[in-house]
């Protein structure tokens, strides 16, 4: 009955965080293994800047000025300066998927994306799916009760939206395989699958 060290050779532990962050090879491997809805966003090497700078971010169709430092993440800028708090800080390495947003239509983790790296790109947050003309994905989440505490929900909603943008006819098994970049502690997975399938079928 010993558990010492077995963790490191568990077959789940195939990609470690350092190798994940190290290079695109590891990223590709991670994608193949976990099939997250999210693809790695290459972090453009910004010109060397230090201290606070004001930049413009295009978020949800509008230009917004934010004051950032080189280390400021997109997540921090969205949440603390633009009051867009839908994307959540759950893990700083993006492994929970809670900070998923779309950048030029592709899902990225706002927690591992620097604000300066996404100037000039179209950033869409979960808030863009709400409002008057609420998107089918959040509506399906309500219909199928795909949220409990709801803290993971915005990340999942964006991940489902991204998956269905890419593959509007996704099958159940594609949905089961395509949403593994996000974590839900309350256990809403089965209802998320139902919600996503319902959007595919045009039921909401």
């Amino acid at each position: 009955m010993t558990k010492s060290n077995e963790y490191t050779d568990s077959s789940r532990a195939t990609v470690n965080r350092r190798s994940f962050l190290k290079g695109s090879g590891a990223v590709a491997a991670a994608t193949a293994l976990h099939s997250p809805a999210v693809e790695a966003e290459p972090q453009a090497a910004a010109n060397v800047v230090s201290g606070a700078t004001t930049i413009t971010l295009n978020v949800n169709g509008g230009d917004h000025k934010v004051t950032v430092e080189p280390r400021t993440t997109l997540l921090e800028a969205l949440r603390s300066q633009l009051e867009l708090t839908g994307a959540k800080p759950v893990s700083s390495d993006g492994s929970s998927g809670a900070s998923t947003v779309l950048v030029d239509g592709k899902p990225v983790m706002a927690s591992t994306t620097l604000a300066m790296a996404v100037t000039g790109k179209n950033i869409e947050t979960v808030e863009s799916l709400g409002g008057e003309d609420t998107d089918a994905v959040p509506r399906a989440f309500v219909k199928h009760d795909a949220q409990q505490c709801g803290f993971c929900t915005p990340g999942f909603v964006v991940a489902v939206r991204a998956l269905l943008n890419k593959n509007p006819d996704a099958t159940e098994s594609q949905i089961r395989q395509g949403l593994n970049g996000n974590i839900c502690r309350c256990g809403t997975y089965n209802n998320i699958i139902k919600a996503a399938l319902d959007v595919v079928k045009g039921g909401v």
Partner: protein
Amino acid sequence: MVLQDNDQTKEPMGPYQWPARKDTDVIGKDHDRLDGLVKSTGAAKYTYDVNLKNQLIAVALGCPHSHVRIKSVDSTAAEKVDGVVHVEVLEQGKEGKEVRWAGELLVVVAAESEGAAREGVANIKIEYEMLDVFTADDDLEAAQRAKRTTKGGNRIETEQEPGDDDDEDEFYEKEFVRLFKDAEIVHEGEYGIDAITHCCLEPHGATAVWEGDKLVVYLSTQNVSGTDDQFAGALGVTANDVEVRCDYIGGGFGSKFAPDYWGIAAARIAKKTGRPVRLMLDRDQELRIGGSRPSGYVKVKVGADKTGKLSVWDSHHWGTGGSGRGAVSIGVVPYVMVPPNRRSIATNINTNNAPVRAWRAPNHPQGCALSQTVIDDVAGKLGKDSYDVFMANLANCTNGKAEVYADQMKVAARLMDWKAKWHPHGKGAVKGSVVEGLGMGLHTWGGAAHPSTCTLKIHPDGSVESFLGSQDLGSGTRTVCAQVLAETLGLKVTDVTVNLGSSKYPISGPSGGSTTVGGVSQSHRRSAQDGLQKLFVLVAAKLGAKASDLIAAGGRIQTTDGNKSLSWKQACGLLGVTPLETTRSHERGKDGALSSSGVAGVQMAHVSVDKDTGVIRVNKFVAVQDQGLVINPKTCKSQISGAVIMGIAASIYEQRVNDPRTGLFLNSGSFDRDGYGLARLGDVGDIVVELYEPESERSRGVIGNGEPPAISPKTAISNAVANALGVRVPVVPMTPKRVLDALAKAAGKA
């Protein structure tokens, strides 16, 4: 806001009861959760989302070692970091203090931005004196050698009692020898369940702001009504000057009942700096100190008859509740089905992990896993169907629910197609390297309604709102309250507003122990029933009818024959200019017909195991659960399904891994595959939830549902794996390595 009770009729009227099943319009029907859309569009504001003008962001330095004494602290460099506004050395971070677990917060840095705060933390210099570390909670002998054990209690019950002249110890020794000799089959084994954490996705934390001498705290809490006093006591102010708010909480699971010292620190720093302060734990700290569940390991010997029914149980279990806390209670080992002769001994192991917090159904999941895996191994040994052996052991039920379990087992077996899928342990078909198996577990929980007070306002314009100092953990509290009001007042759920999440609202209990739905449905039903009676008096006068002849239904108040009526709005117009306010309370233990306690549930799992890789997949899971009267089947089922998914994680992936040398919690910082292992969407098979609500159960009233379905999953899945392999993987989570080790051991290779 403090609501004035202008209740004209202060005395409760009653009698309070639920409408019969056939007479309900809203209760017992599926309803979308009222806060679903704000959650799924990111509009819901959690504690972590509160951005106040001028707000400072605080980040804490967690102790990087498992057991140390602080030799010195130097924060001068941190104070000089650009953007750092305040550095606070916490009590336990002061010179000379002993710190007994890693992650404990020592120093807090408040700054203009998170980046600056983190840079400040990186610049704090602490010298530590390293002390002895012990975290091997599964190793009883090592713990004894390290002098880390204390007695955890013992319980002995036998059918034969010692005589007056007998030496008790001697008598029991002999008696147990005799009992095992007389048993038709004897089984011995070792089993275990590792410690896991609560791992709330919204970490613990608070944003505190002073408005003059008044403190407002946005707290991620399961205890809105109970934390204002705790803040006041710690800060030396009076409780009426404190308001705790929590509109949305990103998970609690039993770990968020108190302000915690970091919440107090946020309030202190806010006072000192004159600015709002947010202090949230980071992921690593959340897992290390934000709450965990005791581990449990057992050596057990049982005797049974040929049907598999246990006649004697003899066990010694141990485990850790972290630093200074106990192991799993002896009250749950063995669990629910307790043989007439039993001896249970427990030993606590004091480790260098943060103290445990209540985790969904405290003690029960461990008790269930440590006991019912044993019963299943007896079935395996006898070559019998586990279903039949569990059925035989229902005769040992101690909670009076044997008949309910028997019926639930039938329901679950039908939904699982148990008979068709069953094969004796280890005797199923092998497809390539994959084998399949079936397992089950059963559980019990109390879930008595907590105290709750609801103030109901019926406005002259027809709008209706309630106020209560409760919280919605994700179970759908708002929706349930609204359903009760709507049902009682003959309205639609969307016609009423439920206001919760402030300590200034009437007191409601903490949401823990499956007590909330019972409590809030009590207070809402009482307020609405009595409020309606008062409105009936006005309507009766207007219509020239008797108040006792009126009913509220379909948005109207009408005579029972339907001949005379007013719309709800017209009726409320009779109030003139003053809203009708009714405040009613439920006191714990005074359930009446509306709520009760004591539930039963049966769960079954069907799994596939790859013998070559050790990988387990849950193909199908069936959960049959009693919770008395169900108010919202939709959210109730979600909660059960969620509990099962948590259980799948704890069965296969989830564990706290402590480094054997440094004691550090190695996998606390990430959810990556070498981080903290939780189930992901693709890891979860079909989950079938059946709400068990025959009239015999429905008539008992409302009973909470948060804990019970979280109890059996590990047991059912472990038993299913044992059935598939014909070999027990003794400790959960059943990681691939543990599966392969168990197979190798059985093959005589280990």
